[in-house]
Every structure is written in C-alpha cells, then in structure tokens.
C-alpha cells in the first residue's frame, strides 16, 4: 500500500492512495456505506458505474461476528469475494455509523462494548482480529475503546490506555501476508492532553495510518476542531488519516481542513431515508439565483432551489395545488437517476410506497456527495480550499436539500 501527498492547501491535502490490490484513488475520499458487505439499497452491479470515484466502501466487522455470516465470509475468502466487490476498496471500521450509539460505558481490559445483531456485547481482541483477518479488508481500524466527551476523566484516560494496548495487540494478531493495513485508533475525547497522548502513542506504531475516534457524539464544533488539530499535529504527515463519526458536509469540510484523508459518511443515506435529495451547488463560480436569496423558508414550500428540511408524512394524500415538476433532482447532474427520471416520478414512487424511490434517491445522493468530495479535492489542488469552505458554509443557509416527498401534482 502506498500513500503519497500530492498537494496541500492549509492543512488540507490531496493524496494518492494505491492499495496492494492495485486499485488507486485520490484522497480526501468518501467511503460508501455497506451493511453485511453490500450497499444498503444500491444494486451492487450498479456500484462500479455509479460515479468515476465510486470505488471505496466501508464495512463493519461487527456485522460479521456471528455465524453463519462469520463462517460464510471466511469460506468465501474475504469480504471482497463474499460481496462480489473485487476491484473495490473495502475498509473495516469498527463503529457502525448506521447503527447504534456509543455509550462509552462498558469496557474491560478484554474488549469494548458494541451493539450487534444479538444485542450489546463485549467484543474481545482475539474475536475482533479473527473477523478482520477473515474479511481481508484493504485497510482496517484497530479495536477502539471509543468514549464520548462527557465521560469522567478517569474513564477517558482508561480509553486512551486500552486503545493503545489494543492497537499493539491487534498488530500482533494481523496476518503478515496481508501487509501493513492497520489504521491505529486515536481517542481522548474529553481532554486535549489525553488526545495528544493517544496520538503520540499511536504515532510510534508501525501502522499504515490512523483513525481518529470519539467524534460525532454531540461534541461542540469548536472543541472538535481543537481535538482534530491536536491529534493530527502529533501524527506523521505521510500516513493516512481517517475519522469516523463525521459525515455531514460541514463536518467533512472541518475534517479535511484539519488534514483528514478518508471519511465514511451516512449523510447521503440519511437524506434518502427522509426522502430528501441532495441539491447543494458544487461550484463556487455559480451564483445563487436571486429567488433563493429572497425566499422565506416555510415548511410546505418545496421549490427546486433546494429547500425544506421539514419532514413530510409519506402516506399523506395529495398536498393540494401544485405544479408538475418534470425536471430532474438536480439539473445537469449526470447520475443514473437524473439522466432518466424526474422529481414528480420519484414523488409518485414515494407516494406509492415503492422502494425504487429509495434506490433512485440513494444513487443520486451518493453521486452528488462524491462530486462534493471531488470539488473539495479540486479546491485543494488550486490552493483554494479555505475559500471553498467559506463559500460553501455561507450558502448553506439557503438549504441543502430537496424534499421529494412533497407533491408537485395538482
């Protein structure tokens, strides 16, 4: 595996990552979400052509803990073969971002507490590495003792110690023939000193990169920024950095700005679940239309500029008095959905409870997010990342999404 930093803009950087399999892609990169190895709703045979960058996925080892799936993945020879995703990067991230809360309460020296399909259980090191080795991921995160920022000091210190010990233990159990693929976890949520300590310890280990944990748990945004900065300052520049738990556009920008290279994000899927289409503009040069600036937000005001975060009941009957909107979700978008279908059609599918609506929305939302990551990389290469970030967060106030569940048929 080779990682090379190619360009910088502030602390943000573009890198090229070449995996042992030969697959190469640019960072910062989005890892698409999978469950039990497969995308949640996107047909697997469509994943390759979804977008030029749709090559990297995350998966959760916790889905593979128990039989029969544990035995099935081992027999298949790894998660790539199991899910028929050879040619993709599969990154093992312990935290199931689609799943459950990190309580941060229980942990013992033996392992950390995770929610699994058979309830909350302690996952020990041997078991974790057994699953990781059976899955044969391209990159994997060491077993974290991840805690939220509000835990007592003592618990936080313990999490740093555990995480460091477990990193060493995981490294000792990794399969040598798979090479150096470990992303060492850095914790320390409640305290900048602990965060620095965790990072210092991880930095000395023989790993491919690092995974910063303990974020996306309700922490203050400014605090998060300090934690990212403090941790990354202690990490070698030439190794990969992943963060888990951060996924919204602002979080991505903050993380990339601090020097993160990989993020797994549920943001596209969260929008899909709410029947929202991602519509935010991606190019700084395109000015907002005047209509957007003048518009007052109302819950039932569904207009193509991308408004309304109001939840609307799918099963409601017509919303009365509208117009037929035969434009795609985003005009000019080259995704499968936008090339073929209109807003009113997807709205009709939603109102008929057809799961095709989720599939079409998820394809678009994933495509749009991959375009967002591409725009980020372009801005870094042009040394304009700061401008891009400022521009993006300022236009955020006009809305980011389009609510497809609102009816546009009279």
């Amino acid at each position, binding site marked *: 595996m080779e990682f090379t930093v190619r360009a910088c803009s502030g602390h943000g950087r573009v890198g090229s990552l070449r995996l042992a399999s030969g697959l190469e892609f640019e960072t910062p990169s989005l890892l698409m979400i999978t*469950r*039990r190895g*497969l*995308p*949640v*709703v996107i*047909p*697997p*045979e469509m994943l390759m052509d979804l977008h030029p960058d749709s090559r990297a996925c995350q998966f959760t080892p916790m889905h593979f803990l128990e*039989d*029969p*799936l544990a*035995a*099935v993945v081992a*027999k*298949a020879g790894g998660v790539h073969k*199991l*899910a*028929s995703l050879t040619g993709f990067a599969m990154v093992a991230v312990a935290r199931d971002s689609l799943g459950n809360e990190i309580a941060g309460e229980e942990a013992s020296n033996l392992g950390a507490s995770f929610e699994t*399909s058979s309830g909350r259980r302690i996952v020990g090191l041997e078991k974790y590495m057994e699953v990781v080795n059976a899955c044969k991921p391209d990159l994997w995160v060491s077993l974290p003792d991840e805690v939220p920022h509000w835990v007592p000091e003592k618990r936080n210190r313990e999490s740093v110690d555990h995480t460091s010990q477990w990193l060493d233990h995981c490294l000792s159990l990794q399969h040598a023939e798979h090479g150096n693929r470990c992303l060492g976890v850095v914790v320390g949520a409640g305290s900048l000193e602990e965060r620095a300590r965790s990072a210092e310890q991880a930095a000395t280990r023989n790993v491919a990169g690092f995974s910063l944990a303990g974020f996306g748990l309700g922490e203050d945004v400014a605090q998060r920024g300090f934690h990212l900065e403090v941790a990354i300052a202690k990490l070698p520049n030439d190794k990969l950095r992943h963060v888990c738990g951060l996924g919204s556009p602002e979080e991505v920008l903050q993380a990339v700005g601090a020097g993160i290279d990989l993020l797994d994000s549920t943001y596209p899927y969260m929008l899909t679940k709410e029947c929202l289409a991602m519509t935010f503009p991606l190019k700084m040069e395109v000015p907002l239309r005047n209509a957007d600036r003048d518009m007052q937000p109302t819950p039932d005001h569904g207009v193509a500029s991308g408004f309304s975060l109001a939840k609307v009941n799918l*099963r409601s*009957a017509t919303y009365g008095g509208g117009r037929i909107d035969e434009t795609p979700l985003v005009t000019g978008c080259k995704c499968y959905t936008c090339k*073929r*279908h209109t807003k009113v*059609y997807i709205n009709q599918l939603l109102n008929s409870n057809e*799961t095709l609506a*989720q599939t079409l929305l998820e394809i678009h939302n994933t495509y749009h997010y991959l375009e967002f990551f591409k725009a980020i990389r372009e801005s870094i290469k042009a040394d304009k990342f700061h401008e891009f970030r400022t521009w993006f967060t300022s236009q955020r106030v006009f809305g980011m999404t389009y609510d497809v569940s609102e009816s546009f048929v009279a």
Partner: protein
Amino acid sequence: MNWPRALLTDSGGFQMVSLLHLADITEEGVTFQSPVDGKPMLLTPEDSIQIQNKIGADIIMALDDVVKTTTTGPRVEEAMYRTLRWIDRCIAAHSRPHEQNLFGIVQGGLDPQLRDICLEGLVARNLPGYAIGGLAGGEGKDAFWRVVAQCTAGLPEDKPRYVMGIGFPLDIVVCTALGADMYDCVYPTRTARFGSALVSEGVLRLTHAAMATDYRPLDSSCTCMVCKRYTRAYLHTLVTKEAMGSQLVSYHNISHMMQLSRNLHSSILEGRFPE
C-alpha cells in the same frame, strides 16, 4: 417512467376481489373506500379507461366485474353479464384505439355455460386481444385447467390470450400447453421478499438453516447476476434482514421467469415443447 419497452395497465378490476370488504359494486361502477384517506371513491368503466388512456400503456384492460371462483349462485352470472355490458362502455370511452390495445376479460366463474356466453360476447366485439380472468383465486387445479382450456378453445387463434394472475412456473407451463400467451403475477417478487428463490428443481427456502452452509449458487443452470456472484449461504444471511436480500432474490426470481418464458418460446418454435 422512462421505460422504452412494452407496458400493460390493468383496469382496477382485480382490486374489487382483493379488497371486496371495502367495495360496493353497482351497474354504474365500483365504489371503493380509499385506502389512503377512507373517503369513498367510485371507479366506472369510463374512469378506468380514461386513466389508462392517460397513462398510455400499449395494452389496456377493460374494467370487468370479477368474483371469487369460490363464489356460487346468481352473483357469478350477474358479474358475467355486467362484464359484457361494461366492455361496451369501455370501448366507447377508449379515446386512443389506434395506439392502445383494449383487451376484454372473459368471466363466468367455473361455470362452462356462463364462460361460453362471455366468450361469444367478447369475440363478437372483435377486440385486439383477450384475457382469461377470474381465476387464480383458490379454485382447485382441475377446475382451473378446465376453464383455461375452454377459454383458449373459444378465443380466436390469431390474437393474444392473457391468463391473469398466474405466476407459479408449473401453472404457466400448463397454460402455455393449453394455448395461452401472456401472464402476470406478483408471485416471483413476493416470494423473494419472503426469502424463497425459484430454481429449476422448485422453490428454495433460503431461510432454512441448511442454507447457511450451502455454498452453491441459487440455481446452477441460471446465468443471472445473482447466481454468478452470490452463494446460497450469503443470501441466507441477507434475506429478511437486509433490503438488499429481497432485491437480490427478486432479481434472480425475475430472471428465472424470463428464462422460463424463453425456454417455452424456443421449445415451441423448435417443435420440442412436449419434452
């Protein structure tokens, strides 16, 4: 829909049977209780055809008065005669006869005499195609074949015959042997969502514990994307747990039905259908 291939729309007649406790059928039409807001909705033959004209499918179905095959008594006769009266209203309401083909639907329950009357009446209207309706509702197989055979014998040779609501592979093969051409059914995808795959040997229940260690594809003779990529064991872990499980098995089941159709078609052309 951006669907460049053939499309067929149903009239809403079947819903009368499946939602009967909500329906009131009169000469005018069918009154439903809307499942969305509970308000009464009336569907007349004219309404049904108008909506189908707007949707624009290549083949549209007449609104018929359907009764369950287990129904006995005068209601069956009433429904058959009403179907004939309604076909005329459908024909009159059809505003796009040169672009859309209106198929009539043969009713009459399991009564051969009623079926005959209906057949005669519909054939006399010289429609582009005909459906055999009112079956696949719980009648015994012997009664079922008999009615299909009678209808295919009574319908013109040079027009399509569409047996509605048939989806079990065996039923399709038998109806094809009896001279039918078209079928529709929710069965392949519905059974997929419940974890059953259609394979050459029959139905494979993927939820069964034995599937957990079965590393073969669903069907060794199937060339669909799912059979090329995934094992029964993996699918066993997905069905009923992930939406993707339903998707993949549905994909295979549809592929299976398409292959069945191709096999029926080519075996007839090659003169080896009986084998």
